[in-house]
């Protein structure tokens, strides 16, 4: 840590870990419901559990990204964050909006639009919150001494993410139009601007951990984010196959979305190449594990498992089945969950001055969570493929098929337990680091 104001990052990471824990609890509720044990139905029906699960996911990831930005930007710009007090207010208001939304979901206060369940009045609070955050980041960059490519790509990702939230707030009477713009948020986030955020954070980590020359790393960063947008923007078409939009999206969406894995492949090759080129002297092996891990697992979860159902002929059958859930889990975890974990692992020793890296717990956290998540992906995948064959190809009734595939949710819950154990170990390590410490400031 070189700047005092970087300490704020810690609290965003703390919030992030707290919300992740809650997300997992609601994940188990749904896992059991799919198994036939919908015991909490009267209090937490499935749609409540689901809205809480996915929204907490988005908020813990955003909180992680914000923390990372508050850490990275002062250091890259060589300037203290312009207003630390405002950043704390932003943190608290983010937590409040999140909590109010989650409580609302238990009392039928929501808008049933997948991933955008936050009701519109609360959306405005989100907007104000994000504007405050962006204001702080942009002012710091503006006043700072340096504007590096890494910090610009990261900031660009954050600014565009905020802009793209807006089309999702408009009301349409026509379900097709509604859906059309919902994808401007959901798809253009995860397969567009969030990749910029991920790329920016990844580049920063690689510069710090491998010691490879910044110019080399940043050149590759441009190529990767270039590939992201060139494929990902028109790749939105893979959500426009079957929602009442014209047929040409089958061709455009098919071709461009099939190229999307290139950006993730680029990221994986890039991380591995920089690691091999680098000095391998950095002592923080856990952060290195997560950094290489995120680059590789995102390629598998988003790239390969995305490719698996992105062609129109396949998607006609898998669209809206558990196959989608299989891909959704490994993609979100590999690309965005793990990059947040990588950054926290890197930042904690620097924030606190305690060098707890390379512990057994830390290693176990990495392997248990990842193997657990891979197992969950397989369980969802087997259930999903079985569902597609029985329901969509054989024409069996939905409810009968669900009974047939219940057993795969037992496997899912077992693997989820392993995953959760890994996450708990990670959070245990996080807590052991303690709070940030002024003495950790580097001269």
């Amino acid at each position, binding site marked *: 840590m070189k700047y005092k104001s970087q300490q704020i990052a810690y609290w965003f990471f703390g919030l992030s870990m707290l919300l992740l824990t809650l997300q997992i609890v609601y994940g188990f509720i749904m896992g059991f419901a799919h198994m036939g044990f919908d015991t909490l139905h009267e209090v937490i029906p*499935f*749609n409540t559990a*689901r809205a809480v699960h996915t929204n907490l996911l988005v908020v813990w990831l955003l909180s992680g990204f914000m923390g990372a930005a508050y850490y990275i930007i002062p250091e890259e710009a060589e300037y203290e964050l312009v207003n630390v007090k405002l950043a704390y207010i932003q943190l608290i208001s983010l937590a409040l909006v999140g909590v109010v939304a989650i409580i609302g979901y238990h009392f039928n206060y929501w808008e049933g639009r997948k991933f955008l369940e936050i009701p519109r009045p609360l959306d405005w609070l989100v907007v104000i919150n994000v504007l405050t955050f962006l204001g702080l980041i942009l002012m710091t960059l503006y006043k700072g001494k340096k504007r590096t490519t890494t910090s610009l790509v990261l900031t660009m990702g954050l600014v565009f993410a905020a802009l793209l939230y807006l089309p999702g707030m408009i009301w349409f*009477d026509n379900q097709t139009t509604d*859906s059309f713009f919902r994808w401007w948020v959901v798809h253009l986030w995860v397969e567009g601007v969030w990749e910029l955020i991920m790329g920016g954070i990844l580049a920063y980590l690689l510069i710090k951990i491998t010691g490879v020359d910044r110019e080399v790393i940043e050149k590759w960063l441009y190529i990767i984010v*270039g590939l992201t947008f060139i494929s990902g923007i028109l790749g939105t078409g893979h959500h426009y196959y*079957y929602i*009442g939009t014209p047929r040409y999206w089958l061709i455009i969406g098919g071709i461009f979305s099939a190229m999307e894995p290139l950006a993730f492949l680029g990221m994986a090759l890039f991380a591995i190449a920089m690691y091999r080129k680098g000095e391998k002297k950095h002592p923080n092996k856990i952060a290195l594990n997560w950094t290489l891990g995120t680059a590789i697992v995102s390629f598998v979860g988003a790239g390969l498992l995305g490719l698996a159902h992105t062609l129109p002929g396949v998607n006609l059958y898998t669209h809206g089945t558990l196959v989608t859930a299989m891909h959704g889990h490994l993609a979100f975890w590999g690309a965005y969950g793990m990059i947040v974990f990588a950054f926290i692992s890197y930042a904690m020793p620097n924030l606190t001055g305690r060098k707890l890296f390379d512990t057994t717990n830390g290693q176990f956290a990495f392997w248990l969570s990842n193997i657990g998540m891979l197992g969950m992906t397989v369980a969802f995948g087997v259930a999903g493929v079985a569902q597609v064959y029985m329901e969509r190809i054989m024409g069996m009734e939905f*409810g009968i098929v669900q009974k047939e595939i219940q057993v795969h949710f037992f496997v899912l819950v077992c693997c989820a337990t392993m995953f959760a154990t890994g996450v708990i170990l990670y959070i245990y390590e996080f807590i052991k680091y303690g709070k940030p410490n002024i003495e950790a400031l580097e001269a």
Partner: protein
Amino acid sequence: MLSKSQARTFFLGGTILTFVVFLGLSWHSLSQEVPKQTNPEKLTSQVIHGKELWESNNCMGCHSVFGEGAYYAPELTKVVERRGDAYIKAALMSKQSWAPRGRKMVAYGFSEQDANDLLEFFKWVGNVDLNGFPAKPTYQSTINTK
């Protein structure tokens, strides 16, 4: 090898180009084609109210339409065709959890009027031209699920 500034040009150029094409196609889809495929003239106040109910109760948190939503309860795009009006209204108006196969739906107990509006919404949804989704099952004729 590519220089850093060439890499930047690739990024900016590619982004702007594809984004402009995307905006053009989106405009074309929404202004020219979507009206043909979705029968907007049939969006009566009943259908719109049905959509409001669909959203305010987060039905999409268990079900899907157009294949979008959750995977806990049946796809409803063609539900009217599959079940008919009476069945759907019974499920919506039931004061006890509807659970034909053991898996429970929330007991909404909608009024007759609200149930009718939701039904109108499903009818509108069922008539949208979805480019062939949901596909007709290949073997339905050989398996009798009734």
